[in-house]
């Protein structure tokens, strides 16, 4: 070992070690007013070590010296980026890479080289230059793969370059650290791809990262579970229900482990307990969405052009499923699994509790509905209306949506009507209490949904009535009252579009255009459906109906861009605007035949 300055190699190592302790351990205790105190001291030490090294003679140990210098450049680079001096940090990291370039595939350099690239990736992402970050990280990924293919032995950890021989790490520890650095590469890449909107790739890298975290036990259970649950929501949007369920099942299993392990210090605060309960409720909400999406997707597959269950389609899909099941028996499924033996069984058991194939009849739909409903209860336990207004309402909205889609599978109209009534009962009280000044968005959603539900119930009652010989007074009363309620909520929704001086906007914004037009159109139809034996009243209703239809027609004439949003409704409205006056004329003539 060449003499290094006047200080000796042991002294150099000591300085280096102190610098590392300062920047990783001590710096956490720095006061808020002086957050980088330890980092700055560490920097000074590193500079000293660098001085000492440059004073050392170059000779046949040139390579060794270069690698040590690279370690220092790396540490300095990280130090500068930590203290917000990106440009200086970049220079150091670049120098580190230059020094290592010729040796990057050898076991004493590969890990350092990958970590330098990781850090440059982060640095460039902080400058919003994602493409540049991507090149560094992808090259780190490639280097890992090449190294594992050509060599594969546990490489040296960068810190070992300043360690005495007897302190060096075990192969097992080396491997652990190397794999961790690479896991970071993948995780950063996942983020890079997300920023570049390469969503599929981002999801794939997230998935791999999660898998590796599990394999190398480098994870925090609660965080891991939340990540897995979030990933499940990505798969939902891609309609990959099997993958989605797998992620959720793994999330639930890993989370439950977190609950069992008593914390190290066992001084969990109320806050921690509260957090844990919230996380659990969050995972429950992901399950709700899973059930909801599975049911809704099945509905899409099964419905005919007026939104009713299509029995032919149902038979067809059942036959198809039978065929697929037979084939699967032969081929076994090939899904990406979090395949750790100790949790694998629990995950599989969890998965068995709910299906991942489309439900094709009421019975199957009901089973998924019930699972979803259980999670609704679980989520509500934490997200109570007092304190968590928005979350609570969102959960109630999901509950309502579960009933709505279940009603689709129900053949009996009376029972279907009762399901919608359940929705009304859960939505109405919230809607009336909510202050629209702070919850305008949700308030509108609730108004619209209530209107829509009453509208549906009225339709169902009309259909039930049509089967009777003659409409009895009870049914008529029911139909009229449902229609009145639907009108009330559509009007509330339309009122929410008014400005503080209660004026309805001259031009509707693109985003509210369609809901507003649909509300107007439905009100027009509702006035048309009101049943009355009083001809004068009937005439009035027709007049109101005509006014609403006319609004649509006039608006579209004035703003032709709007036509695209409501083509069908416009066509019908035009027809009604043509028909209604004649009808009204006839009614008027009947009313006063002698004039």
């Amino acid at each position, binding site marked *: 070992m060449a003499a290094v300055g006047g200080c000796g190699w042991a002294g150099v190592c000591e300085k280096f070690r102190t610098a590392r302790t300062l920047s990783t351990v001590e710096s956490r205790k720095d006061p808020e*007013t*002086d*957050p*980088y105190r330890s980092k700055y001291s560490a920097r000074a030490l590193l500079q000293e070590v660098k001085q000492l090294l440059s004073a050392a003679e170059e000779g046949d140990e040139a390579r060794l010296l270069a690698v040590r210098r690279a370690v220092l450049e790396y540490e300095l680079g990280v130090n500068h980026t930590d*203290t*917000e001096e*990106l*440009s200086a940090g970049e220079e150091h990291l670049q120098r580190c890479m230059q020094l290592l370039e010729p040796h990057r595939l050898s076991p004493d350099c590969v890990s350092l080289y990958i970590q330098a690239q990781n850090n440059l990736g982060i640095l460039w*992402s*902080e*400058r*919003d230059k994602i493409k540049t970050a991507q090149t560094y990280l992808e090259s780190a990924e490639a280097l890992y793969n090449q190294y594992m293919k050509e060599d594969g032995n546990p490489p040296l950890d960068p810190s070992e370059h300043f360690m005495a021989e007897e302190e060096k790490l075990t192969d097992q520890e080396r491997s652990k650290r190397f794999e961790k650095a690479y896991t*970071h590469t993948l*995780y950063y890449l996942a*983020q890079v791809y997300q920023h570049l*909107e390469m969503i599929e790739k981002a999801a794939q890298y997230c998935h791999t*990262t999660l898998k590796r975290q599990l394999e190398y036990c480098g994870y925090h259970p609660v965080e891991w579970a*939340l990540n897995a649950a*979030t990933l499940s*929501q*990505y798969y*939902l*949007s891609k309609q990959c229900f099997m993958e989605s369920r797998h992620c959720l099942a793994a999330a639930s299993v890993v989370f439950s482990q977190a609950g069992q392990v008593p914390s190290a210090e066992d001084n969990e605060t109320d806050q921690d307990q509260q957090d844990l309960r919230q*996380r659990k409720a969050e995972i429950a909400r*992901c399950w709700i969405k899973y059930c909801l*999406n599975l049911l*809704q997707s099945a509905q899409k597959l099964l*419905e005919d*052009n*007026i*939104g*009713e269950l299509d029995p032919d389609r149902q038979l067809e899909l059942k036959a198809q499923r039978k065929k697929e099941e037979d084939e699967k028996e032969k081929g076994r499924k090939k899904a990406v699994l979090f395949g750790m033996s100790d949790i694998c069984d629990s995950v599989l058991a969890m998965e068995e509790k709910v299906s991942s194939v489309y439900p094709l009849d009421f019975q199957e739909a009901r089973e998924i509905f019930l699972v979803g409903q259980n999670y609704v209860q679980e989520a509500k336990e934490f997200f109570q209306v*007092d*304190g968590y*207004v928005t979350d609570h309402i969102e959960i109630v909205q999901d509950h309502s*949506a579960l009933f709505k889609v279940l009603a689709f599978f129900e053949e009996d109209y009376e029972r279907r009507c009762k399901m919608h009534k359940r929705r009304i009962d859960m939505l109405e009280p919230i809607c009336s209490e*909510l*202050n629209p*000044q*702070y*919850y*305008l*968005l*949700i308030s*509108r*959603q609730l108004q*619209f*949904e209530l209107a*829509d539900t009453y509208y549906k119930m009225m339709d169902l009652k009309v259909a039930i009535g049509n089967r009777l010989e003659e409409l009895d007074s009870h049914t008529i009363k029911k139909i009229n009252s449902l229609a009145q309620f639907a009108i009330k909520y559509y009007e509330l929704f339309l009122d929410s579009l008014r*400005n*503080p001086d209660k004026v309805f906007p001259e031009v509707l*914004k693109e*985003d*509210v255009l*369609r*809901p507003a037009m*649909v509300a107007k159109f439905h009100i027009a139809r509702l006035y048309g459906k009101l049943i009355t034996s009083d001809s004068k009243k009937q005439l009035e209703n027709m007049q109101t109906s005509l006014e609403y239809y006319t609004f649509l027609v006039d608006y579209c004439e004035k703003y032709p861009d709007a036509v695209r949003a409501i083509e*069908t*409704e416009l066509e*019908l409205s035009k027809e009604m605007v043509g028909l209604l006056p004649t009808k009204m004329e006839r009614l008027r003539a009947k009313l006063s035949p002698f004039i």
Partner: protein
Amino acid sequence: SALPLNTSSAEGDAIKVCVRVRPPSEGTALGNEHQGLCLSVLSSKTIRLHSKPEPKIFTFDYVANMETTQESVFSTVAKNIVESCMNGYNGTIFAYGQTGSGKTFTMMGPSESGNFTHSLRGVIPRSFEYLFFLIEREKEKAGNGKSFLCKCSFIEIYNEQIFDLLDSASAGLFLREHINKGVFVDGAVEQVLSSAAEAYQVLSMGWRNRRVASTSMNRESSRSHAVFTVTVESMEKTNEVVNIRSSLLNLVDLAGSERQKDTHTAGMRLKEAGNINRSLSCLSQVMTALVDIGNGKQRHVCYRDSKLTFLLRDSLGGNAKTCIIANVHPGSRCFGETLSTLNFAQRAKLIKNKAVVNEDTQGNVR
């Protein structure tokens, strides 16, 4: 099908975004090493960044150059928001930018002054003056018929924890929602205000309690987001009917944007550093999410709200008027951070409300 529903009210469009370029200064590391400018202001709406190989041009609602006065920033940016606050809208003004880009100067004014009447005072003191001027005018117009009640609170969000700047002894506070009152900080001190001078006093008292830190980059860099909230309640009696209107004005000084790190990155070091500005990185995440949802699929995102976005959720797409002032330093050493600030500001312009009214028409037309 599900439709996106924009809730910004009446003429209140998407968020207004303004950029302000500060003059390079002596005495800071940024000033000394500055060798040239990395940008030029082309007009009152456009700015050119001298990037290589191609320069980049950005367009905003308003670009204030180095000569723009505090008064003109106020009248272009904030005046309108204070006025709508009197009309019952909630309003929010954010300052965003790198440490040392002039956020505090823009919002507060020169730190050493401590004087409310200083000619260089910033947006916040000017907003106070204007607000109370409008209140007085309204009172005169309406005679005895109308009365006002102004209250304020001042909190800071540091490390995803909430602290009350008006009560430095208080421990971490929690955000909660009330079905009638919206989001509020549980237990935060609310002080009644009767004049602009009083408001300024409360503000400067709280400001001294903020968490600041010295780095070699900047001698005073804020580590926290500070939110000053004024609640304006008006009560009008006409005949026997009492009409109560209430609105919020939020004035927000964000922590330095250069420390905006992804919080979900693994590894202790990053998490350690990242946590300081968790709110900020979540802010942009929420924005991205707001912009690119829209495939109509329902999903639940586990990490959605940071404390800051939760508190201001109304401002990021409710019935509120919002303005972001993006501050940049023109020095060429700040190129990277300036670019990222301008990109952020550009993204902010895209924010619209994406709440969804479920409105399926199929089966309705029968």
